[in-house]
């Protein structure tokens, strides 16, 4: 009964603090505007500039590697060739080093020709070469058809080429999309930014305004007040995570529609919920860190001065994680922030490791509970609440 009462008191405190924070314009600005306006805008902007650089690449005359026989065939049969032919060795390495734009193989069977084309989708020039070659073969077929119609009676239909075009993106997984690599990192930064102000306001801010004394004199125990603060700050952590990921998905959809491009964040409903399962514990983890630093500080200014170095460390760790390959080393799943970045990344590229993600979530929950207990203990000490 007493336990139930305690939870109820924490709940009404959390409800009061959520309402209080929602009335603060700055909170709405950070949480709603940044997640639902800034992130989609960022996605659209980045995709737009990618499309622009692709347009610029279209004017480039690509260099395409061909086998000697294929090169001879192309030269002998077509007068205008829209690319430079490369006949050197180590074709694949040269393509990956961006020295050429594509590798073409022709499998001929009489007039039937199967064209295989390898390119790098993350290189605008290579991507443009793919579009150019594809269009060229389509034009050859079209011209042939016109000639056929013009001289219908005399034409030998067996000499008409029939192209079957097949393409392969050879970009390594880690380079497939730089945007997809940094999205997990931006999401985490967004979550911290969303809860930072609220966590500081609920602790150091309350001390500064002397409202914490008012709370402490009410018939709530220190633990109930602390738990209420954890609940309210975590609520905003969860909302921020939800809005951030929604913002990115919406941004990706809008940019895909507007610019007629492939959707960068292509996740189904299961993966969406999996993302939230990763984001919820990490947002609670950040909430508790911020609350601890907040109660440790005398005022908001001091709290911010403690949070800034931590913010920089998280930015650094998160950034390093974006450069790592998707999570395979299970030890990494025990490192907070790194585990979340790698888990989110694996979901975005749809290469999910269940064991890695499970360990990541469980370890983050463990750290969060530990931090929550530390916060509640600190909150019981008058040195921190009244000092």
């Amino acid at each position, binding site marked *: 009964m007493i336990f139930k009462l305690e939870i109820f008191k924490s709940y009404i405190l959390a409800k009061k603090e959520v*309402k*209080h924070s929602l009335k*603060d314009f700055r909170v709405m600005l950070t949480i709603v505007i940044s997640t639902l306006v800034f992130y989609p805008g960022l996605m659209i902007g980045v995709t737009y500039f990618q499309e622009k650089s692709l347009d610029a690449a279209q004017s480039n005359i690509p260099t395409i590697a061909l086998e000697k026989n294929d090169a001879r065939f192309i030269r002998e049969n077509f007068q205008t060739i829209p690319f430079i032919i490369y006949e050197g060795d180590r074709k694949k390495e040269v393509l990956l080093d961006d020295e050429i734009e594509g590798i073409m193989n022709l499998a001929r069977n009489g007039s039937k020709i199967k064209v295989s084309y390898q390119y790098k989708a993350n290189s605008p020039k290579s991507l443009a070469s793919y579009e150019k070659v594809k269009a060229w073969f389509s034009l050859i077929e079209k011209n042939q058809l016109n000639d056929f119609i013009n001289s219908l009676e005399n034409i030998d239909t067996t000499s008409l080429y029939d192209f079957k075009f097949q393409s392969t993106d050879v970009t390594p997984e880690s380079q497939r999309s730089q945007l997809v690599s940094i999205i997990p990192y931006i999401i985490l930064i967004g979550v911290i930014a969303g809860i930072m102000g609220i966590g500081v306001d609920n602790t150091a801010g309350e001390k500064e305004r*002397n*409202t914490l004394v*008012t709370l*402490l004199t009410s*018939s709530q125990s220190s633990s109930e007040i602390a738990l209420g603060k954890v609940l309210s700050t975590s609520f905003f952590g969860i909302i921020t995570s939800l809005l951030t990921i929604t913002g990115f998905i919406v941004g990706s959809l809008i940019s895909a529609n507007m610019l007629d491009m492939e959707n960068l964040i292509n996740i189904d409903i299961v993966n969406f919920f999996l993302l939230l399962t990763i984001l919820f514990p990490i947002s609670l983890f950040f909430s508790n860190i911020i609350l601890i630093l907040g109660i440790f500080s005398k005022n908001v200014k001091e709290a911010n001065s403690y949070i800034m170095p931590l913010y920089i460390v998280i930015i650094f760790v998160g950034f390093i994680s974006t450069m790592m390959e998707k999570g395979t080393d299970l030890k990494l799943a025990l490192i907070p922030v790194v585990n979340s970045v790698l888990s989110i990344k694996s979901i975005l590229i749809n290469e999910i490791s269940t064991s890695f993600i499970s360990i990541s979530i469980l370890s983050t929950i463990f750290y969060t509970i530990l931090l929550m207990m530390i916060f509640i203990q600190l909150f019981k000490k*008058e040195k921190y609440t009244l000092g």
Partner: protein
Amino acid sequence: MLTVNNISKVFSSKKKQIKAVNDVSFKLNSGEILGIVGPNGAGKSTLLRMIASLTLPTEGTIKINNNYTSTHNRGIKDDIGYVAVETGLYGSMTSFEFLYYFGRVHGYGKKEAFNRITELASLLDFDYYLYKKISHLSTGMKQKISIARGLLHKPHLLILDEPTNGLDIIAAYYVREIIKKLKQTQTSIIISTHIITDIKMCDRLIVLNKGNLVYESNTMDVINNYNSLEDLFFDVTRYNKNVKMGM
């Protein structure tokens, strides 16, 4: 009602120790108003915070209605109403929202909380700004809300830390009238103050200086024995009344 028994409070840091309150003892009966006076830094607020269970004494005990104070004893917090020197109100809330929240915390149901707030609004005369945002209220209005918050759960002991501090003459008058009304309800009140008019309301008076209780008496005796509160102050604290002017 209240027994303060040999309490001391020491604040320790790495460099030094400060004894804010030193071996203070006194009693307060039901329906009595006790005034605590003393110069700045005398330990008045620390003493009041210890009685309010906000902070624990380093030594000694405080007993309210046969219960010893403790920061975790919720029962004892229900017996005390504490109004700090800073009002500590949530500016973004209306007066009603603020009081309703604390009403719920003190265990009132939704309807009970509403009825109690209406009752207090009528008693303390703030009905007309009950639904106004606290940040839009004047200092006097805020002080009334703060006192209402202290009285919300019908405490047996009300602690007022400088209740008329910073109020204009009219607002201070109203606050004193509220205190007089409360005395009639048998609520015991402790007031920390520097203001002579506040002291005149008190039944008894104690003077703190440098953490020590240096004087305790009935207010009437003080009025009879001293020309002014200043005289009492200089007498019991042994400060020099002659100001040296460097001119």
